[in-house]
């Protein structure tokens, strides 16, 4: 490749990274600006007051706790359902597999608006038909959980399915021949092989749930999650408390990323230790 084109491609990659990161820096910067409007211009001096105001915002804290509960529930359900689906898909073939797999994948593409409305309609209709006020059949965050699971489970399924490709089914045969019970085969042979994918799936599900707005908006009833709360704040009177929240969330993300990178490099060094090629 010619030198000029190589330089240009490096330049483009740098610009792309700046494009991705700069908005987050601008948003974080605004959290420290002593100005009533969230912006970095004009700069009116450093302050930490938006962080203390954020901590004093009870509604935001409640929304934050709600979000964590919803995300944990979604991660748990998605992992169970997604793993079971991957195991099933891996052991069937032909027309049925194509159809079931297609249905599973299509859930990722269904607009969140449709998922939200349809979930809300089904459960409230069942509730009306049974003439009950049982909480399951009324709007609330539990319906948000069910709605979110309906497409996030597909993401977990894809991750686990990819991991299953590298699984040696002979290990299960050997265990069965040696007298292991079915439950033992599942618990001691198959699941340990899948743990990395299940862990990754849980992380993806957790973060996807925190992000979700569309499904939650139509099913939440009166309850807030962080995304819904931030949205309502952006539309009504905004103060830089939202930016303070963003700083904390971005910091957590970056911290997790750095930890992950350190672990990866250490593993790479360990792998590189014995001369292979």
């Amino acid at each position, binding site marked *: 490749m010619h030198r000029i*084109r190589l330089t240009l*491609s*490096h330049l*483009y*990659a740098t610009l*792309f*990274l700046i494009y*991705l990161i700069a*908005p*987050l820096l*601008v948003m974080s910067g605004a959290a420290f600006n002593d100005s009533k409007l*969230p*912006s*970095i*211009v004009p700069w009116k001096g450093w302050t930490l007051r938006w962080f203390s105001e954020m901590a004093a915002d009870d509604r935001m804290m409640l929304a934050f706790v709600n979000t964590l509960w919803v995300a944990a529930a979604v991660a748990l359900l998605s992992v169970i359902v997604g793993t*079971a*689906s991957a*195991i*099933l898909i891996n*052991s*069937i073939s032909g027309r049925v597999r194509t159809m*079931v797999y297609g*249905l599973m994948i299509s859930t990722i*593409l*269904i*607009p*969140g*608006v*449709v998922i939200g*409305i*349809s*979930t*809300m*309609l*089904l459960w409230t209709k069942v509730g009306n038909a049974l003439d009950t006020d049982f909480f399951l059949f009324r709007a609330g965050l539990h319906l948000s959980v*069910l*709605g979110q*699971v*309906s497409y996030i*489970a597909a993401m977990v399924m894809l991750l686990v399915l990819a991991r299953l490709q590298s699984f040696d*089914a002979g290990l299960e045969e050997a265990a*069965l021949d040696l007298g292991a*019970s*079915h*439950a033992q*085969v599942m618990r001691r042979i198959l699941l340990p092989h899948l743990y990395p994918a299940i862990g990754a799936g849980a992380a993806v599900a957790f973060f996807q749930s*925190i*992000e979700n*707005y569309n499904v939650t908006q139509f099913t939440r009833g009166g309850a807030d999650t*962080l*995304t819904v709360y931030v*949205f309502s704040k*952006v*539309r009504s009177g905004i103060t830089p408390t*939202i930016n303070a929240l963003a700083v904390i*969330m971005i910091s957590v*993300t970056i911290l997790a*990323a750095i930890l*992950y*990178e350190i672990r990866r490099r250490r593993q790479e060094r360990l792998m590189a230790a014995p001369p292979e090629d």
Partner: protein
Amino acid sequence: MQDLIRRYGAGLTAIICLLVFFWLAILVVVPNITLFESSFRPYLPVTEIGGPKDVYSLDNYLKVFSGQVEVSPLGFTFLIPVHVLTFFLTIWYSVVVTFLCFLIAYPMAYYMAKVAKPSSVPTLLLLIFVPLWVSEVLRAFAWWIILAFKGPLNSLLLALGLIDAPVRWITGYDAVVIGLIYTYVLFMLFPVYNAVSSLDTNQIEAAEDLGAPWWKIHWRIVLPHAKPGVASGSVMVFMLSAGSLLVPSILGSTTSQWFTQTINQWFNDALDWNTASAYAFILLFLCTVFVALAMWAFKVKLSDIAK
């Protein structure tokens, strides 16, 4: 299936099947059938539900055609129902977003797959992942700050002398498109990156040795190879954009309206769930048809996408 029973026993197999059934039937298929059924029912007070007035009709769907507005593209003036116009604009701007996402993501995907040192790719990926983990609402909010009339972008451009007076960025659909691109560009980047990575570098070198100009290498070798990745990226970005509610609500101007916002108004403001269902079904159905047509036009199969 027999294989499953032999390995894990009838009990565990039954549990696995039940879990899949719970997901696909209870969480996906039945709710969507309910949505479809409700979309034909009228909006009635609670006491009249199930009464003589509660009959199926197409009224909810016909509401799309009420309320005419005048539009004059390219000098031709004609009347068009306001919700139909909203729908077309949503589709049109989603296509624009998809195309721009491809233009921005393709060089980067090629860079990561073929130009960058393989040892630096994981770090690059990690850097790119950071914005993806930050929630969508905050990303849209970040652009709301940047694009504000007295915001940093105008200040920067004024300081550089590129513009003489501050530009109003949040007009029409401009800010919505900018926000959607930023939010969804990574959904284009990753599939294209995966597809380009699987291309044998020898093919590119052979073409170079034979004297092909760089654009021809991309057009004839890299792009055809990356087509499935481009297709799945495009389907993702298009469906996410057309179905987005957050970004158009935060970055929309007074003159922009996204179809999902119309659905949200029927559902949460007018509390007419049945009409909202009809509109939601229209969105789902027509977007699926549009994607299917586009795939047929570009000769992409569904199995290419699910790879």
